[in-house]
């Protein structure tokens, strides 16, 4: 198969988008998951439900509301205009923001689950040994939750790569800016260029499979699976 410039652009854009979104998501999800895992506030249930909400909205519908929300009359749009950023739809930044909403629950859940499973004892041990809350978080909680972060990163990255409906809605299909691979392949299908669609899909699958293989292979030792744990 031959890759056209348009193909290469779409691939590169997709990798860029998914990487940036995954990174930001991990940064947002970690404190959120921390709070959800350890708080005793009754707000917990409400926040949990709220975080999971984008899940149930069909992507195109979510995209529809993001389009309105980021538009000149929408709250987000008014904010970005006041800040002098302009409007977000049809820009790469807009895709990033939309993807953050869309993939957040998939990243929060595994991290929260991992935090909950660590339990208090390792944190107590570290505190006794003189570790400040920050150090406990970095050198105890994080490494013990590696398995959860791995799941979170995989789900977040893959979900963003496979994202379609939201981007279709707010992207505007602009080459090199918002035409990611999923849209690009879809275009081929719509244009009845099935051969090109097949090739691109195969490439995407192979690449993803390869990435997943690597990530799963470097999975950390199972810290709790030992016979005596």
């Amino acid at each position, binding site marked *: 198969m031959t890759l056209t410039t348009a193909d290469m652009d779409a691939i590169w854009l997709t990798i860029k988008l998914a990487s940036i979104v995954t990174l930001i998501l991990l940064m947002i999800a970690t404190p959120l998951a921390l709070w959800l895992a350890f708080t005793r506030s009754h707000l917990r249930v409400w926040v949990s439900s709220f975080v999971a909400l984008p899940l149930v909205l069909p992507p195109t519908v979510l995209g529809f509301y993001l389009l309105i929300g980021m538009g000149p009359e929408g709250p987000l749009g008014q904010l970005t205009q006041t800040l002098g950023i302009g409007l977000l739809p049809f820009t790469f930044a807009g895709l990033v923001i939309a993807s953050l909403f869309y993939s957040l629950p998939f990243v929060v859940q595994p991290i929260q689950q991992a935090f909950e499973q660590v339990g208090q*004892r*390792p944190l*107590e*041990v*570290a*505190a*006794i*040994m*003189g*570790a*400040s*809350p920050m*150090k*406990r978080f970095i*050198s*105890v909680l994080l*490494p*013990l939750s590696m398995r959860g972060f791995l799941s979170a990163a995989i789900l977040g990255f893959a979900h963003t790569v496979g994202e379609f409906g939201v981007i279709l809605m707010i992207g505007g299909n602009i080459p090199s800016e918002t035409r990611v691979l999923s849209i690009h392949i879809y275009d081929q299908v719509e244009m009845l260029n099935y051969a090109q669609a097949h090739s691109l899909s195969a490439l995407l699958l192979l690449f993803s499979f390869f990435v997943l293989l690597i990530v799963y292979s470097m999975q950390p030792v199972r*810290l*709790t699976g*030992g016979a*005596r*744990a």
Partner: protein
Amino acid sequence: MLDIDICVRQGRFQLNIQTCIADTGITAIYGPSGCGKTTLLRAIAGLMPIQTGSIQFRQVCWHGQRDSMPVHRRRLGYVFQENSLLRHLNVAQNLAFAQQRQPQLDTGYQQELIELLGLQELLKRYPTELSLGEQQRVAIACALLSKPQLLLMDEPLASLDSERKQRILQHLKHRSENFNLPILYVSHHLGEIATLADHLLIIEDGALIKQGPVNTVINAMAKPALITVED
């Protein structure tokens, strides 16, 4: 002095202790299973919500009406009754982690403890790859290496053989005397207490029922059978 005046609740169990503990030598804590020994140590360490009361150590307020000193500032060593190690670090890394309060590793003392506790072979192993006695030995080393001002030990030698136990007890005694390190030592073993401790606290059902120099208390104990049966 360690001044304690606390009330702690845990389910239906209640611990009410008001006492002054000497800040020199070894103070043993004795009492039947479930009487609140672990709860007392955890409260002192700052790991338990305290209902009302205060804790002062050497004139410094650790827990008062308004605020509580965070655990990591209390300069404690604590050998828990179980799981005292960080399971994602190997033995050497646990020892290093325990010394984070010091500007640099105290390799001399670390080497001494490694020999005393027989850890040489274990340094590269993870806690899940150790026998229980080995875990306890590593935990003792960690607690001592963290240069504490107060050492809490919850039955630290329960799974060790007598020979090694003796050497460790000697070291603890020596360390406590020479480094001005008070030790609170929970044990079920009156024989051990008699040889090791300077002071003795007896707890029953969440309350302090006796306290004093170890010999006085042991001699005055209502049930001398306790001692003779075992020794």
